[in-house]
């Protein structure tokens, strides 16, 4: 009896220790095997998956496969509306007709031509404004934290606002707007939303004097002299609310329009930049008529999301994201398949194996794990950008993002760890995990790729990140990136490293620090 009691006491003690231990469960580590890594890659990079282009039926098949794997590991569906799928839309948008822009300058009608004088923005709505009064609204920014508001002292209601691109003092390292780095206020979308908030009927983007473009920058293939038939811009739908009529004009039109105010573009630009203060004003002698027409389709695409809930009553509200993109670039001329074994069937396999390892660990970690297979990375980090803008869990509670992208090549014991400058403690955790469990050579010299994968969408939202990668190969984005070239043993080691890093980070009381370094 006493012996039983002692054993029970020991067992309870073990459980308590286990409960707060940073010892990574061996069952989890051991469950990550080269054989399973290889099997996942062989499937995802098979010819049947036709290069997993975003969007494509084959990408959807891969999403189903990943969701089924998540389910088999016991991960919970993470999206409250769509289960294992976080659905977002891609937009294939074309210019329709009509698109026109004219101005009444001191009573004289002036017609402008599309392409040479103006282009509709991709964000524009379909519709018209007719003979609308115009107000110059500086950079179109309202930024209380920087003590700056271009809309102070003007009434934009029902008017067309003319605004500069970028933000004040963009070339000044001492600028209140974070020096020479652009803040979010420089984005078209933010300026459009702000114009909407101020009741504007339309927005005209102006080039500043230093803008290298004389004509409005054209990103509509249909405006080319010989447009390629299959070129239809595909963009990420990030905004589903109201929008307004938006165009960008070239330098000549900008000068003519601003001249009605009695000033030049340069005077207004330099006036704002030298003082750091708005110079917004009505332009009484000017009215404009604008019509923009776009036509397009929405194409739904899926991130695949699975949740492994933490056990700690408090810390389980914080989570670590482990992700990798499952798309690639598809086929060319309908015949040449870009299998994308390394890029990024390998990282997807890693995400699956790590998810399984958590389910095999025997105990949940204190923090929650969110596994995401991203779509649309090859198109412009679309899946992770969408997640970062529409997170399923608050990003302020997201303590780390570990990204696996191309983890299967180059015959050495090395893995590049990119972005570790974003967190001193996360870097230390990764090194500790490596030293204790894996013994890979960690490479820190690949920072030039920091912007080029899904972790970057999280970093931009102040989440500490590590991007695991086994460097470029001559097969990158070529039909030769095939399953026979992967090194499953190396993949398994990297998978174990990420698992161990995530485990330790999920167990620690303190969340990783975050360092904004760019």
């Amino acid at each position, binding site marked *: 009896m006493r012996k039983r009691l002692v054993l029970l006491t020991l067992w309870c003690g073990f459980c308590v220790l286990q409960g707060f231990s940073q010892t990574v469960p061996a069952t989890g580590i051991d469950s990550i095997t080269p054989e399973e890594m290889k099997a996942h890659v062989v499937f995802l990079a098979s010819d049947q998956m036709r290069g997993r282009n975003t969007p494509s039926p084959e990408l959807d098949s891969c999403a189903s496969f990943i969701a089924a794997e998540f389910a088999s590991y016991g991960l919970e569906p993470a999206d409250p509306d769509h289960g294992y799928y976080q659905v977002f839309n891609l937009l294939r948008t074309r210019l329709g007709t009509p698109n026109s822009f004219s101005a009444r300058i001191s009573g004289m009608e002036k017609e402008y031509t599309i392409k040479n004088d103006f282009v509709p923005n991709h964000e524009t709505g379909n519709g018209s404004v007719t003979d609308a009064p115009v107000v110059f609204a500086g950079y179109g920014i309202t930024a209380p934290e920087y003590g700056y508001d271009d809309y102070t002292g003007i009434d934009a209601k029902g008017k067309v606002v003319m605004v500069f691109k970028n933000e004040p003092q963009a070339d000044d390292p001492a600028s209140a707007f974070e020096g020479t780095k652009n803040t979010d206020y420089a984005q078209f979308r933010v300026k459009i939303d702000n114009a909407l908030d101020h009741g504007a009927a339309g927005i005209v983007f102006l080039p500043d004097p230093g803008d290298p473009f004389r004509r409005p920058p054209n990103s509509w293939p249909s405006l080319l002299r010989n447009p390629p038939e299959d070129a239809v811009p595909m963009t990420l739908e990030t905004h589903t609310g109201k929008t307004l009529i938006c165009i960008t004009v070239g330098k000549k039109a900008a000068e003519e329009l601003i001249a009605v105010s009695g000033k030049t573009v340069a005077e207004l630009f330099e006036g704002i930049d030298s003082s750091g203060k708005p110079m917004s004003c009505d332009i009484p002698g000017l009215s404009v008529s604008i019509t923009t027409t776009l036509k397009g389709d929405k194409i739904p695409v899926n991130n695949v999301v699975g949740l492994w809930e933490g056990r700690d009553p408090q810390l389980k509200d914080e989570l670590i994201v482990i992700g990798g993109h499952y798309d690639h670039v598809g086929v060319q001329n309908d015949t040449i398949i870009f299998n994308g074994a390394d890029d990024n069937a390998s990282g997807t396999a890693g995400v699956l194996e790590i998810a399984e390892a958590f389910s095999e660990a025997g105990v949940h970690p204190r923090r929650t794990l969110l596994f995401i297979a991203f779509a649309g990375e090859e198109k*412009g980090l679309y899946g992770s950008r969408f997640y970062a803008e529409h997170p399923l869990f608050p990003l302020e509670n997201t303590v780390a993002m570990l990204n696996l992208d191309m983890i299967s090549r180059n015959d050495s014991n090395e893995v590049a760890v990119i972005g570790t400058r974003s967190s001193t403690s996360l870097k230390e955790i990764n090194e500790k995990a490596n030293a204790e469990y894996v013994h890979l050579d960690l490479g820190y010299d690949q920072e030039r790729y920091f912007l080029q994968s899904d972790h970057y969408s999280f970093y931009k939202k102040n989440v500490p990140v590590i991007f695991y990668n086994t460097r470029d190969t001559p097969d990158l984005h070529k039909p030769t990136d095939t399953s026979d070239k992967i090194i499953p043993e190396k993949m398994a080691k990297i998978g174990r490293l990420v698992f161990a890093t995530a485990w330790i980070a999920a167990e620690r009381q303190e969340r990783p620090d975050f360092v904004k370094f760019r």
Partner: protein
Amino acid sequence: MKKINLRTMSILVTGIALAAALSGCGPKNGIVGDPVKGMALAYSLGEGQSLTYSSSITTTMNTEQMGQAFTIDQGQDIEFTITGQGKDSEGNYISALKFDAYTQTMEGVPGMQSPDVSDVPGHVMEYIFSPQGKRIALNDPDTVMIDLGQMNGGPQPLTAMIQVLLASLPKDVKKIGDTWTDTRQDTTQRMGMDVINSSETTYTIETEETVNGYKCLKILAETTGTIDGSGETQGMQLTIEGDVETTTTVYFAYMEQKMVKQVSESFSESTVVVSGPVNMTQPVVTESKITVELVK
């Protein structure tokens, strides 16, 4: 990993835009005659005679996506010597083109590295040009390659890097004050694309001027043109359209029959479309300045 993101794509498309801009819209014809009464201008390069030039190209390329601008700066400095080796059956000069010095830089985007050009200095290739300076051939049997990196088109032959050597001269007899216009259209291969260059150049023999101790004719060439191309690069279907403006001033030593100096400034606005799976349309502005000057 996303190989062609907004920034990496910007490098590729601006490289394409640059190549296209430089390829077709410089002056291709020139002048003729006694400076006052009219004279035919032609190069002369005797067998064993050498001319050494220094050449500098600076290029700034800008692109924009969703209101965010990216800038890439490129530079190329070359010192080269042309040594006459005789003429071919059509009277074109055959020469040995030796690269005495060569540097090439690229910067502006994270991940961009200047290429390794250590194989170039000392390298010799065959350069055949007409008496009017038209490039007939640039032959490099050893095919020295310069790796621009995967972001920027990968390895490219050195011959593709050599955009400007000698200025072209007119076939007809011309004199100071003459102005004439030349329209031309040709097709060149650039980064896997067939690029059609259409241009109209107005030439003026402005004056006679002494440059570096040589009596020279100063020839001004103002070109406006278009570039239209399509093809495949790195597995992507590309289309480019652009408008180019170039102003070139050539100083030609008509007595010694050699180019003393050429200065060219170019501005192009173009749009590059990547169709197919990677679907992207990107505006690009390219500004470049080229100087070629006789050293000895």
